[in-house]
């Protein structure tokens, strides 16, 4: 079995395009795909007292929603192409998690879409694609 492709997927049209390209290449190279959906999260953010108490419940809800609204449709998109796919849902910083998985899974390539936000917004909030270009340990394919 060859080293997997990692696809950063958030349900946006751009990430659909990234997934499609990854599928096409995976079919050719008979490579498995790891489909990664990241829920943005910082352990250093501030929460109110009530948010603390409800956090565990919210997390379960968020995971269930991510599963049904984002990951399941993506898996349907892959099915029928004969590509092996394993979904991963994680909390954290998107680029960091993609890089971490690329290392631990010895991935061959990372595929992501970029959301096309303005340079200003990207500078303010950071962009996953731009960060990957700078720090990714493996080649990246970035789809517009």
């Amino acid at each position: 079995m060859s080293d997997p492709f990692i696809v950063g997927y958030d349900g946006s049209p751009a990430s659909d395009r990234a997934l499609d390209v990854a599928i096409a290449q995976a079919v050719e190279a008979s490579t498995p795909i790891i489909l990664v959906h990241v829920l943005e999260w910082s352990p250093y953010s501030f929460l109110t007292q009530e948010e603390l108490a409800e956090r565990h419940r919210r997390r379960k809800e968020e995971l269930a929603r991510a599963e049904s609204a984002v990951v399941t449709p993506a898996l349907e998109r892959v099915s029928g192409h004969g590509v092996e796919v394993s979904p991963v849902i994680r909390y954290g910083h998107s680029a960091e998690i993609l890089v971490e998985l690329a290392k631990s899974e010895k991935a061959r390539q990372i595929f992501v879409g970029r959301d096309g936000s303005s340079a200003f917004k990207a500078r303010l909030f950071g962009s996953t694609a731009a960060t990957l270009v700078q720090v990714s340990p493996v080649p990246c394919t970035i789809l517009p």
Partner: protein
Amino acid sequence: MSVISRIFVFFAALLAATGAQAQSLDETINGLFESSTGWYVDLIFANFPGTEVPWIVGWLVIGAVVFSLYFGFVQFRWVGHSIRLVKGDYSDPNDAGEVSHFQALATALSGTVGLGNIAGVAVAMSIGGPGAMFWMILAGLLGMATKFTECTLGVKYRNEFPDGSVSGGPMYYLTKGFKERGLPGGTFLAVGFSVFTLLGALGGGNMFQVNQAHQQISGVVGEYPGWITGIVFAVIVGVVIIGGLKSIARVTEKVVPFMGILYVLAALVIILANFDQIGIAFSRIIEGAFTGLGVAGGMVGALIQGFRRAAFSNEAGIGSAAIAHSAVKTKEPITEGFVALLEPFIDTVVICTITALVIIISDQLVTDPETGLFVVENGQIVTQSGATGVALTSDAFATAFSWFPIVLAVAVVLFAFSTMLSWSYYGLKAWTFLFGEGKGKELVFKAIFCFFVVIGAAASLDPVIAFSDAALFSMAIFNVIGLYFLMPLVKQELRKYSEKLRSGEIRKVK
């Protein structure tokens, strides 16, 4: 919006009804308040027979000393580990998205850092002199062990509901912990604790806060009746806790840490700009701690003020922190104890100390040039401008930055507001423990809470401080008794945890 608009209509009616006797309303509320709470305050602050020491202060200090000794000064031996836990060195990456140690600590701190650090220190200094600071720091250091004990238990015995939300605090460890050890009286202690938590939430967590906020606002815009501030605050608090408008709470929670950092930075700038006086300031603190430097009550006066304000500021032994810390995600309850012990350190040893240093360095307390002792009138040290409470701290900062009183006024109002939100939550937890969960029952408590906001703003400072202190300390009576009985359980946890660390079962992930 219907709830919110109903609140507005209610207060508009109240306003119209009382408009005629606007000025006398404050006096009426004040008189009623003082006469109805005076006996209770006297009871809580009664002295040990034949001494000048209030028994309740002794109670907390003895507790803190016992916990410090019993756990072999855990607050010093484990502090490095505490910091590593907060940094997330031991956090399982698979738990990302759950409440982290840092978040639990930050939220608990935003409930305690506030007026206690700004107004409380000023009150302690003007009654007890700089020496009060020495005892305050000592109380803070000892209080770390108390917090460690109560927050470990808070996590260990919290309730986890099927929907995944959690509820924790002394009322739960008092009932479950006592049952586990086969001890009687747990329920009695838990009920007692909850009753006084309700009073504490209405007193120190509500009336004292809004009262100080009113003093600040009227200091900036000019004198006006307190009940107006009360109604405005009651509406805003009501919109958040009854109307469920979370965005206000969220904004406050985000601005408060920023304000805290700004406050500390401003204080550090003043202290560093006068670094030649730091030595003098500390020598006044130490000298005053043992001689009183002429303050009413001498050394004992300084000691009592220091301990009293420390407890009010960092809430160690009060039990409130155990409620705040109980939501953290951890397999080892004791880790939250380690994290919580940083709280009195940050709150009292660091933030209160720098407030005190600024007050001393800026020469706010008037001394007699001939004797070097403080000039005392009516039991209080005379200050440059005659101010006390927040105004004294404000004057001290204004000597360096003339614009600071405005920043401080904003900070105080925000601190007051965030503390009120935290305490409305603590109060609610006590309320639901006593009367059961349910939307209707919760609404009753929330309405009472808002009503007391108005009373707190209208009453004058002294009876409010006295009542707030009394209510908070009463919580400690029940909580600390419980801690004595449950501390062997914490020791077991400590032993198991050190064993796991030694064997490498628990190790750093970063």
